[in-house]
Every structure is written in structure tokens, then in C-alpha cells.
């Protein structure tokens, strides 16, 4: 297990995402209302690149023509077949027991802590003024 600085928080605004590569894995980092989450960038159904999906709300309907939206910006819709995943947990909305996207722990840490070490930033410039998203894997 190691920790990786993958973005300055300012790079990924609320509702945005960034695709990063850590240890050869494509990982999509999401900002949901100021909280950061990281999912493997591969739909468990047929492998689509999830960072190309739209960030949507939970849509529920009791009958045709009447629907309501909740949890705005917390679901991710696969760009191909429309599978929807909870960005917080990686679980599929319609098949939560069997279908989920691999999730990675993401946290936000101040540059001050990171710049001091024991971390070493190789080519990624870490400055004390900013906050950074750190993945653990």
C-alpha cells in the first residue's frame, strides 16, 4: 500500500473528474460537492472508460411520466450501456450486490504536510499553498 498525490484539489472542481494513472491502473477521480472519490476507470459490464460518463442524479419514478431526482451529482452513468454507479461506493444502482466498480481511498491533504515528507514528489510539483488529492493503493 502506498500513497500517491494525483491532483491539486483546484484541478477537479465540484462535479468534475480527472483521469489519472497509478501503478498502471487508470483511475477516475471525482469531486462530489467538495468530497473526493476514486473509481477504477473501467465499467465492470463491458470495460467502458467511466470518466467519459455523465455525472447524474438518482432518478426514481412510481409511474410513467412522474419522476423525481435526488442525490444530485452523486451517480455516474456509463457512457455505453448506461449502467449507473454510486460514485461514493462504486456500487451499481440496479444490481448493487453483484456489480460494482473497484473503489480506492481518496483523501485531501494540505501541501504543507506533503511537501515536508516523508513523501517524495517525483515530477509532480507540490507546493505548500495548495491542497492535494491523495490516493491510497
Amino acid at each position, binding site marked *: 500500500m502506498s500513497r500517491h*498525490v494525483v491532483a491539486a484539489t483546484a484541478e477537479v472542481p465540484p462535479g468534475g473528474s480527472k483521469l489519472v494513472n*497509478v501503478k498502471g491502473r*487508470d483511475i477516475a477521480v471525482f469531486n462530489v460537492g467538495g468530497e473526493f472519490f476514486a473509481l477504477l476507470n473501467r465499467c465492470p459490464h*463491458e470495460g467502458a*472508460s467511466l470518466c*467519459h460518463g455523465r455525472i447524474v442524479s438518482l432518478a426514481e419514478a412510481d409511474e410513467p411520466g412522474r419522476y423525481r431526482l435526488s442525490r444530485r451529482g452523486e451517480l455516474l452513468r456509463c457512457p455505453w450501456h*448506461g449502467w449507473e454507479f454510486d460514485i461514493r461506493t462504486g456500487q451499481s444502482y440496479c444490481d448493487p450486490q453483484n456489480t460494482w466498480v473497484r473503489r480506492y481511498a481518496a483523501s485531501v491533504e494540505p501541501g504543507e504536510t506533503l511537501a515536508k515528507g*516523508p513523501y517524495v514528489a517525483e515530477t*509532480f510539483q507540490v507546493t505548500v499553498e495548495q491542497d492535494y488529492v*491523495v490516493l491510497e493503493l
Partner: protein
Amino acid sequence: MSEVLNAPASPSRAGPKQRLSVVDCDIHPAFKSGADLYPFLSERWRKHWATFGHHLRQGLSSTLAHPRMSPGVARADAWPPNGGPPGSDLAFMREHHLDANGIEHGILMALRPGGCDERNLEFGAALCAATNDWQIEAWVKPEPRLHAAITVPQEDSQAAVREIERCAGRPGFVQVNVAPRTDEPLGRRRYWPIYEAAAAAGLPIGLHIAGVPGHPSTGAGWPSFYFQEHHANAQCLQAVVTSLVLEGVLERIPALKVVIIEAGFTWVPSLCWRLDKHWERMRDEVPHVKRKPSEYVRERFWYTTQPIEEPERPEDLNAMIDWLGWDRLMFSTDYPHWDFDDPRYAFRAPLTEQQKAMIFRDNARALYGFA
């Protein structure tokens, strides 16, 4: 916890695990706009299109009958960065699909406005001819991996035969496409000249739902939802297979080969079991059907894979393929449409190396004569 690595954004998709080269039997090219077709239409038909538009069969006639799953019926990641609808930019299609997925040959399915569903038959013939010329000039000549299917005005079989004869000798055409949901079931005599011309040219008939011909998409009438319409492709093709067999088309034209595109294939065994049972009991009604229906089907039909069936027990799919014959299934993606199948993940149950090679490449190479 000892290091913090640089992690640059990686814009490229992970390389395909599927190293086997692939023949994709269903790729949809699109016009940037109808003007793409103008160079291939005579002044008379350009004026007609500008004045009257094409197929006036329903209200809101330039739309499809049901709202689609995704805008443009397309994968959300397939919109070309330089603009235009998905499937309209060859350079982007190369990068996004042909190169990324190892496609060695791809067969074009030009859906709209193909002319196949045009009420004005002469205009339909002109649109088909223009679509065929456009496929060659805009896609096949610049990209030799791509091959075209001859779109025909199927309700006017004389014009359809003329179009087949005009195109068949030219390089780049590997199939004759007929859109099901025709004015009569496709086994009816009015369509036989099309099959005879295709067989004489050595080209298979491709059956891919296209156009808005005015008939309900299900045998039970107009559906309420796109969900139903999507599923109805399989039902439609069951009726078409039955018609081709029982009208005696396959008996009368021994060289005819038929490819069922984007309509599934696991229904074929159960349909054949029913047809065979009734043929044993009721064949005096159709003496021109000399052999068991399943024999014609096994010999003369091929199937493309997308949208692949996904049974709860993945190995059930392989049992259905055992019945069809492993030489009958040809991989397809339907790029750039939303229900695209990825060659890496479409099949859930393990396939042997030989089965993989057949489905992803060799069956289509053999049928279409690709090297």
C-alpha cells in the same frame, strides 16, 4: 507510505487485451449533414430533397419512433472532437475504434437516409445509389479496412436489381443490405429478384433493421417504449427467417446466403425446433420446402453477435452456439451506437482459442472473402 509518485492524467484508453485481430460486421457511418450526399445525387433529386425532404411517413418525420437510450443513439464517448454526429468523422473512427480495438476489416451499415423506406420509389432508388457511392468515396477508398454493403430500394425489386448490378462488380462492396419490416414478408415472390441478383453476384444478403417503413416494430402492434422496440429486432427476424424458409426462397436459390445483423441468435434453435416439428406434420401444405427447415437455416444463415445475449449462466450461450455451429457467428460492435459490444468483454464464458479465432475473425473472413 514512503513515496508520493507523479501520476499524470492519461488520456488514452488502456490497450485492448484482445490481441486477436477482429472483423467487425456492423459499423455505422453517419453523414455530417444531408449535404454529404448531394455530390452523389442528380440536380433533380437534390432539388426534390431540398423541397420535399425524405420519407414523409409520420409526424415529426425526421425523428425515430421512440426516444433513444442516448443522444444520437450513440456511445457518449463517440462524439467526434471536431464536431458532427458520432460515426461521421473517419479520422476519429480510426483512432477511437478501428485502431483501438484491432479491427482488421469492418463492414459499413449505412442506415439513414438509405432510401430503403422511401415511398417515392424513384427518389428511394436515387438515395440508395447516392448512399452507395458515398460509402465508397468517403469511407472505403480512404480506409481500406472498411467495406460497404449495397443499400437497395427493396420495394422496387427491378430498381434494386439494377443497383446491385451497378455496384456488385466494383471493389469495396461485400454484401447486399435489405431492411426487414418490408411491405410484405421477405420470403414473398416480389423480393426474389433481389436474392437472385445477390446470389449471382456472389454476395450475401445482410438483414439489419433500418428505416422507418411505417409498419409497427412488433407483430403485436406499436410498442410504448424504446425498450420494446430494441427487443423487437429479434421478433422481426424470426418472422423473416420463417418466411424465407417456408416460401421456398432457400430451396429455389441454392447460392443465397443470409446474414442476420443485430437481432440476436439464441432464438434460432427454438424457432427451428418448432418449424421442424410442424414440417413433419404439415409439410403437405408447403411441398416446395423439401428439407427440414433447420437444415436450410444451418446451411444458409450467419449471425452477428451484438447485442450479445447475457444469460445468468454464461456457459448457456456456448450451448446455443453449439447448436448454431461455431462457424456461423461473426463478431460485431455496432460502433458508435450506445449498445456497442467490446471485443474484450462481450463473451463471458471462456472460449477456446479456435472458437475465438472463428467468431472474431475467421468466419467473416471466409464469408466475405477477406484475405
